[in-house]
């Protein structure tokens, strides 16, 4: 498996919260030291989790799998990419190349 291309910055805190009725954990995420705090639930939480465990190029595929393939990766690719862009813009995720420090 190739190295992840997306990671949580070292100045971002994360705390898991309770799981919803589908078993998806909620996440509280906050840039340090002063927030604001972001609450990720449902599909947002799934995208967050999957973004951190594999290459970004295959992220839509992993999310579609987590959703039980009720939608195809092609159906959600643009929305997933836009959501990751939003998280990066908020400083909650960062893109890095393999070999970068940290």
């Amino acid at each position, binding site marked *: 498996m190739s190295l992840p291309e997306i990671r*949580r910055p*070292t*100045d*971002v*805190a*994360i*705390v898991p*919260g309770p799981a919803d009725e589908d078993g998806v954990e909620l996440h*509280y995420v*906050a840039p*340090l*030291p*002063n*927030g*604001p*705090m*972001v*609450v*990720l*639930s449902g599909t*947002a939480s799934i995208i967050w989790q999957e973004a951190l465990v594999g290459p970004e190029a295959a992220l839509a595929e992993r999310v579609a799998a987590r959703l039980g393939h009720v939608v195809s990766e092609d159906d959600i690719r643009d929305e997933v990419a836009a*959501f990751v862009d*939003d998280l990066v813009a*908020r400083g909650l995720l960062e893109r890095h190349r393999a070999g970068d420090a940290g």
Partner: protein
Amino acid sequence: MVVTATTAGASLDARIAIGHAAVQHVLAGAGIAVLHIKGPTLDPAIVWTGRHSTDADVLVRDSDARRTVEELMAAGWDLRSRFENSSAFQHSATLWHDLWGYVDVHRCFPGIGIDPDAAFERLWASHVDSEIAGVPCAVPDLPGQVLVILLHAARSGGSPRSRDDVRSAWGSASPQRRAEVLELVEELDAEVAFAAATGHLDDFRDTREHDLWAISLRGGTRFQEWRARVKAAPGLAAATRVAVRAPLVNVDHLAMIRGHPPTRREVVAEFFRRPLRGLSQSWHSARSRSGAR
């Protein structure tokens, strides 16, 4: 996704955990070593199910204490109570963050008898690398965690929570863990406070600290506390300082009660009210002992 500038809906546990991480972030940036204690830092093996905290607690070197408070205030925390006004032991400062709540910055830990910086170095030497809210944080090792819980319980007036803490951390501890904790107690000169926590305070009746820990454990009047603090002070100079300072008004506490910085008139009124309350408490205590109604 919900983005919020408040923490409405977030559990207190989550906010406190992020509070620890935020403090770590600030102090690491300032080059200040910090040990995270109590609350979410505790190993699950020594806490009872359902135990929750209401604030974040950290321990720093006494020599770093003022700078720690300055760095946190510069980063967005509000100072609510200074070290001098925190307790009879003057051991901690309390700060408030609008999102993460309270943090108590300890510069020493009541019950530890050796120099505070030396105590920090001893706990730091055996610290464990942990993670709170996804941020690397240093916490005391298991014996250190047990000792911190016990010393805190000794100051908690025998509350049900403190009894549960003592039972979980010490009552069910293995002989090996107890031996490790006892070794640490001796290294840190914490025998009297440890005895207070574990029900053996009377074994130390002849020590200067006995009365103060008896009051911490069982309660007492203000006069009794003043006398105990003077007696516990290590040397004439320290005892004199305590005796002179004792009747002074805790301005920080008064501000918290009134919800605003107290006016000069309110401080003066409180100055005269405190000795009267102390006298009243002693009188009622004496009447109670004599059986008068």
